[in-house]
């Protein structure tokens, strides 16, 4: 858990929910007796809308769930799946935990590093890929595995990763 020390990154000055997002925020709020419980669902909506959680996005979330901005920032920085900096179009999250590691994840990571020219947490210059090492994804029986965005890719090897990258334009 936790992103370590995080400094707010500049982003757009202000953001507004789209009509669709507005309805989703209202639906999220309706699910709990306490408004604050909707903070994770509403952060997810914001991340889906803009790809990452800029200070402006967190301000908007804070307003929607009735919390101070600092509280929302505190929550968002605890959870590793929230992007506090912009990420590439394809977020490659390679599992490095034991079962996947026993099946070759470390070699696959080196392969990706070399092929993309970026390391953990970095984005390629063309903005296409962000590479990230992550922990167990509950796909251990089909390791090595990687999530691209929310999509699972399992039983991977170098050739399969190469073919996948080709498809992800």
């Amino acid at each position, binding site marked *: 858990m936790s992103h370590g020390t995080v400094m707010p990154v500049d982003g757009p000055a202000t953001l507004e929910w789209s009509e669709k997002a507005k309805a989703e925020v209202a639906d999220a709020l309706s699910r709990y007796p306490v408004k*604050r*419980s909707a903070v994770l669902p509403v952060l997810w909506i914001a991340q889906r809308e803009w790809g990452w959680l800029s200070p402006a996005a967190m301000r908007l979330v804070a307003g929607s769930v009735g919390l101070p901005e600092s509280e929302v920032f505190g929550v968002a920085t605890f959870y590793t799946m929230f992007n506090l900096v912009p990420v590439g179009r394809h977020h490659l999250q390679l599992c490095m935990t034991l*079962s996947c*590691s026993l099946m070759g994840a470390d070699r696959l990571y080196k392969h990706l590093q070399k092929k993309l020219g970026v390391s953990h947490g970095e984005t390629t210059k063309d903005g296409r890929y962000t590479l990230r090492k992550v*922990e167990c994804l509950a796909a251990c029986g089909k390791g090595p595995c990687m999530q691209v965005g929310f999509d699972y890719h399992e039983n991977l090897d170098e050739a399969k990763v190469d073919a996948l990258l080709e498809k992800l334009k």
Partner: protein
Amino acid sequence: MSRGPLLFKDIDTPGLTGLDVYKKQGGYEAVASSVGKKTPDEVIEIVKASGLRGRGGAGFPTGLKWSFVPKQSPKARYIVCNADESEPGTFKDRELMELNPHLLIEGMILAGFAIGSHQGYIYLRGEFEYVQRILDKAIAEARAAGILGDNVMGSGYAFQLYTHLGAGAYICGEETALLSSLEGYRGQPRLKPPFPAVEGLYASPTVVNNVETLMAVPHIVKNGGAWYRQWGNEKSPGTKVFSVSGPVKRPGNYEVPLGYSMKSLIENECGGMRDGLKLKAIIPGGSSVPMLPAADLDTPLDYESMNAKGTFLGSGGVIVIDDKTCIVDALWNVTRFYQHESCGKCTPCREGTYWMSEVLERLENGTGRDADIDLLADVADNILGKSFCALGDAAAMPVQGALKHFRAEFEHHVKHKTCLVNRRREEVAGVRA
């Protein structure tokens, strides 16, 4: 072919995620025959009689846990499903929910009815976004059919159910941290007691149960406690799903009766080791339990037999380690995981996991010192039982298990500055090619 006696029996039936097919298999019969027809206490008694124990890791008797919820409560009561499935080596809940979402919904209705709850949440780890979509669809279908809502199947009992997506934090599998997260806070654990049954979600009586636990409930309520005991043994009744990973020929989820031979699971169900590899060690219950050497392979898969060997059945995440893998290296990987996932709240866990990782990194990289093995044991000993929640124990136990059974490999690292087995994880080829 059926993949197990109960939860996996008909799980590969096409269309099972839809209400029609689920109902054709006898789905929602347990709700129809008990909600509003039996008393909540009668339902609890059936679950108690079955001997069902929690499948999330601790093996706590489910019926007993339900009976701790106050019968009269001025506050709302909640049932929460722990679908965080974050223990490394465990991937059963994901497949169970993906293939049979209505069984979980039915289990939640029954649990909710038994404890007098009218609202339930399914807390999913953030990575399970696609599972959330499957569940939401099934929930909407059940709601439209009057199975969820103000009048569950015409019984007069009201029950609402929602999914909730986490966002990446192993600690949120720990039940009190999960509740903090569900309330919209950082996912940090809370002091117990008070236990959730008395003061849980929104400081109200709450039961937290694992996915697999809740999925056993409809079968038990429908067929009776004694019927469930046709599988397993006196203290570990019923069936359990084991997630097997590592270099075996057929890794995957296998449901077997408790007490089943671990040796048979590996050699028969999983087809044995991949060619050219021998089994060296086995972690039977997710990465947080002490590993066993190959000599203990014939230990029966039940709670008591595992305890007798100094380890735990845990979540049923069976990780197989081969003879070409360095135990120091494997343990470093596991310890690094707990260091990364420590929530930072208490000192023994936050600092201890960091130091254990440091020492293991030194040992593995050939810069270990003579005193390092004792230092490692000492740090583990100072975490175990002394951390705020059980994450600290989860980090300390693998270290203790590895030192107990494979001390020679650690000593070799100190003396010769290199691995006893000459292979590092980064050299492992994509064995799946």
